[in-house]
């Protein structure tokens, strides 16, 4: 049972990692992607719809990435190009996307008589590795998106700390004037990073619809985008911290699913459903040493 729980925890961590890692990158440039909940939802819808119509999960993921990208571009246009307020803009976009997805769902599928489903991503057992006792089932019998986080975390860390691109990204959030003086456009760095985050978050959204449940509802994300957002804070804007955070939350979520199917428990189901949210509150309160990018949330206005 423990192996089963941990294997599910790995799986549930996957979209949270996609989300929080992209949040780490954009927040390092000074932009919080507060539209993350909407981008997740848009990705979930586009992924499901494309997969249902074409019958190909790969096309589903591609469309989810494109849909996430489009929402992120709208968000970046308003907060980076027009320099408007990040939290307010994100909230508006999230409301827009809820309306858009339920409307488009109706346009494309009408009112279906039975629930629409697709076959979700299959688990691929890696040869040899999956045969290792315990570890094999937990880490090496997962779907393709979960495998990709094994590459994304070290890659993210490497880009952020060991490349000149990473240096530019980090400096844009700490000292945009210096970046500007060195001839690099602050707005361009921020815009591109948010756009790339949109691709990642769109895929993360598709994980819920086609990677796991095989269906779409408008409340499918249910605050998971916000949890990914919180993990970025709790992981101190560091890819490794984000990875640890997503494992904790993946475990909490897997635990909640396990406890809900276990009727012998004394505690109410609702407590387990609320567990990841309660955990976020407790961790937000108890974390002391935050390493906030100093220009996080402020627009860069060039002095003339």
């Amino acid at each position, binding site marked *: 049972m423990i192996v089963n729980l941990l294997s599910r925890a790995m799986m549930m961590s996957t979209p949270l990692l996609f989300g929080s890692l992209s949040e780490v990158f954009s927040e390092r440039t000074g932009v919080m992607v507060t539209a993350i909940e909407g981008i997740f939802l848009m990705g979930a819808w586009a992924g499901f719809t494309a997969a249902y119509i074409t019958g190909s999960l790969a096309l589903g993921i591609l469309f989810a990435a494109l849909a996430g990208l489009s929402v992120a571009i*709208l968000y970046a246009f*308003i907060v980076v190009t*027009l*320099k*408007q*307020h990040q*939290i*307010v*803009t994100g*909230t*508006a*976009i*999230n*409301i*827009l*996307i*809820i*309306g*858009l997805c*339920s*409307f488009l769902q*109706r*346009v494309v599928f009408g009112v279906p008589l039975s629930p629409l489903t697709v076959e979700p991503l299959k688990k691929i057992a890696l040869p040899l590795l999956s045969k290792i006792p315990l570890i094999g089932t937990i880490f090496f019998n997962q779907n393709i998106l979960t495998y990709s986080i094994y590459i994304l975390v070290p890659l993210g860390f490497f880009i952020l700390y060991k490349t000149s691109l990473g240096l530019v990204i980090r400096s844009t959030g700490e000292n945009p004037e210096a970046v500007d003086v060195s001839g690099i456009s602050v707005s361009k760095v921020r815009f591109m990073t948010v756009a790339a985050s949109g691709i990642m978050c769109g895929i993360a959204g598709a994980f819920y619809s086609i990677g796991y449940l095989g269906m779409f509802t408008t409340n499918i994300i*249910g*605050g998971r985008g*916000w949890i990914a*957002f*919180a993990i970025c*804070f709790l992981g101190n804007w560091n890819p490794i911290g984000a990875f640890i955070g997503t494992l904790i939350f993946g475990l909490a979520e897997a635990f909640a699913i396990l406890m809900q199917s276990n009727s012998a428990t004394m505690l*109410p189901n*609702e*407590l387990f*459903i*609320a567990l990841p*949210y*309660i955990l*976020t*509150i407790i961790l*937000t*309160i*108890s974390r*002391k040493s935050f390493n906030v990018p100093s220009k996080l949330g402020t627009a860069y206005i060039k002095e003339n």
Partner: protein
Amino acid sequence: MDKKTRDILITNFLAILLGLILSGIMVLFLKKNPLQVFGILFSSMFRDGYTIGEIFVKATPLIFTALAFAFTFKANLFNIGAQGQFYIGSITAVTVSLLIPSPFAIPLAIIFSFLISGIWAGFIGFFKSKFKANEFLISMMSTYVALNFMNYLLRTTLMENKGEYPQTESLVKSTWLFKIVPHTRLHFGFILAVVAAIIVWLILYRTTLGFRIRAVGQNQEAARMSGVNPERIYILAFFISGGLAGLAGVTEVNGVQHMLLQGFNPSIGALGIGIAILANAHPIGIIFASILFGALHVGGTIMGQLSGVPSSIINLMEGFVMVFVIISYFVRKRWEQNREKKLLKEGI
């Protein structure tokens, strides 16, 4: 009318118009004529007294949640947990009204809903002042906690005697908010909301507390220098903000549903934020913006029944309007700068 107010009216009008046009384009995807659909939308809003009353019924809770967001916004704080505070207020209102099945329940429900959701939200301010915790994250997460708490109560202690659905018993008639217009559902809660908006305006612009709140919002360190304690302001601002959102619980439970049921009014918190943005966080502007959103909802629901366009088009329309309203902040600033440049040139 000064130039700034005129700019706000013009740009907001354009934002609403553009929002309508874009959602009209979306209607084309359903192979319907947008002009006809909008014709139904607008004519159905005003088709009879009952429907006009519904507009104000729908606007009532939105006034409260928008005031809740605007109040903390003035202190440069973000309370995006109004949805959860509304649930806490609803739980309180229904509990009080079930325990005291008499007209005395109404004032008590108002007082206790304000206090208990105020305390619930006050904790967010407390965590912010004591532990420097991010109020945006905590208020967001607290909504999910409140929602699950409500679902738990509806399944256990508060569940109806029949035990069939996750909802409470109906409230006895004497605990209902009285109707202010006969033959409609329009109840006393709307007056309460308007009074609340006026009181919020008075607090913000005519009292020392309001001055301090705005001072903290504009420049926290400067406020601290002049003897304001920002930490106390955080707690107070969140307490009042949460209390306001809690009052929406009274107007919905005692005024409209006359019971508490699962999955009820799931988006008034988010809409409140949109309305506060549309009204530039001005308490009196919020009343009108809420009536506008209320009208869109009422018209949209009827339109859905009459023309087969799903009522989710309304959320879409509201989303577009909000996005354009935010863009209009940019346009207004541009206009303002151009005016200043012109003045400067004329001066030379």
